[in-house]
């Protein structure tokens, strides 16, 4: 798939992952969140020389381990066995999160429940009555990297926009998201505006009609 600004079809999950992968600058240090963002690694090319960070203490993470390469001492943040690439480094948890919090990662890609027009992110807690909260590294990831990108479906099952004026889920991090990849559009949040970089299977006008924030065609 090519990066045209308008396509008739919606993006598949792989399309989205591929677009994210293509947008990651060469040589970048990147953390890919659990779930959909993990898929981005499948589309990174060797030429890009991207180094993957996993917050449980490693830079230079390789692909998921299979067969005899599985080693219970070598896992990613999703607790999946992974591999080690040449030039990797291990460090402890405080050093790993210092690396994130200190702004040393170039890009972090996360899933989301909602993103507000000012880049506030909700992805850790539904806020539902009786739900047991769990946060893990979500808040650290959200605010740590130089750029935080979100991958999500734009609409809920009932058709509500997850790009909102203000969050109605509990906040993960304030003003941290700068880009949103969805199946129907890619958004860039900057200069206090929401720009639409591309639309897929929807027109800009339709999109604007369904999203409750002012959009600008980039």
């Amino acid at each position, binding site marked *: 798939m090519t990066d045209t600004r308008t396509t008739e079809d919606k993006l598949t999950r792989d399309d989205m992952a591929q677009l994210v992968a293509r947008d990651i600058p060469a040589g970048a240090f990147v953390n890919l969140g659990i779930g959909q963002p993990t898929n981005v690694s499948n589309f990174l090319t060797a030429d890009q020389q991207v180094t993957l960070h996993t917050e449980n203490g490693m830079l230079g993470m390789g692909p998921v381990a299979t067969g005899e390469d599985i080693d219970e001492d070598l896992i990613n943040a999703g*607790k999946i066995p992974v591999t080690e690439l040449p030039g990797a480094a*291990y460090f402890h948890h405080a050093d790993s999160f210092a690396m994130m919090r200190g702004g040393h990662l170039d890009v972090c890609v996360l899933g989301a429940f909602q993103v507000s027009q000012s880049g506030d992110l909700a992805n850790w807690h539904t806020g539902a009555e009786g739900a*047991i909260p769990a946060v893990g590294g979500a808040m650290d990831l959200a*605010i*740590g990297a130089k750029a935080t990108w979100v991958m999500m479906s734009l609409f809920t099952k009932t058709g509500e926009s997850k790009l909102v004026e203000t969050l109605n889920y509990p906040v993960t991090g304030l003003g941290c998201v700068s880009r949103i990849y969805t199946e129907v559009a890619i958004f860039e949040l900057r200069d206090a505006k929401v720009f639409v970089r591309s639309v897929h299977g929807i027109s800009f006008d339709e999109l604007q009609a369904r999203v409750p924030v002012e959009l600008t065609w980039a």
Partner: protein
Amino acid sequence: MAPRIASTATDAVAEISDGSTILIGGFGNAGQPMELIDALMECGATDLTVVNNNAGQADAGLALLIKERRVKKIICSFPRQSDSWHFDEAYRAGEIELELVPQGNLAERIRAAGAGIGGFFTPTGYGTLLAEGKETRVIDGKGYVLETPIHADFALIKALKADTFGNLVYRKTARNFGPIMATAAKAAIVQVDEVVEVGSIDPEHVITPGIYVDTVVALGGGK
């Protein structure tokens, strides 16, 4: 003081008493001191405060301690998992207290305890539910939350090797919380695959200096 070399995991945890605060290393299975946790289960200590990234999984280790209501409070970042049923049940029954901490703040609070820091301003969690009731401050235009050190009576950790002075090396991502937990507890109890002679770990490669290690037990295994 060179660490005590315990003969069994049971012997290693023998001094843990009721009401203790215990840091338990590991992230997933990597670095989790399974045998020490099992020994803690056996030793009977109760009314514990446990600090771990998670809140136990399935029917083993920490989950069993929670099932038996031996843990009065857990400080962790990610208690809810598909197989954390014992925690879920205790929590919904109001029989365990939960202090939920973002993972990086958890790590930094443990490090702060070991480093003698009285508190620190972290941007993580600012503006969220987890900062409620905490002191906040805007520094150079960015919001921060004041977080406090987590001191403990004991740390239970797993390393790859110890020398007889207690110097430790770890293996891959099993390093995770071990090095910082060792610094934050009055007594760090460490299970290793093997204990080697002093001098066989290069001083450049030591990750946890022996000063932080109180008890070592060699359990074999490993790669």
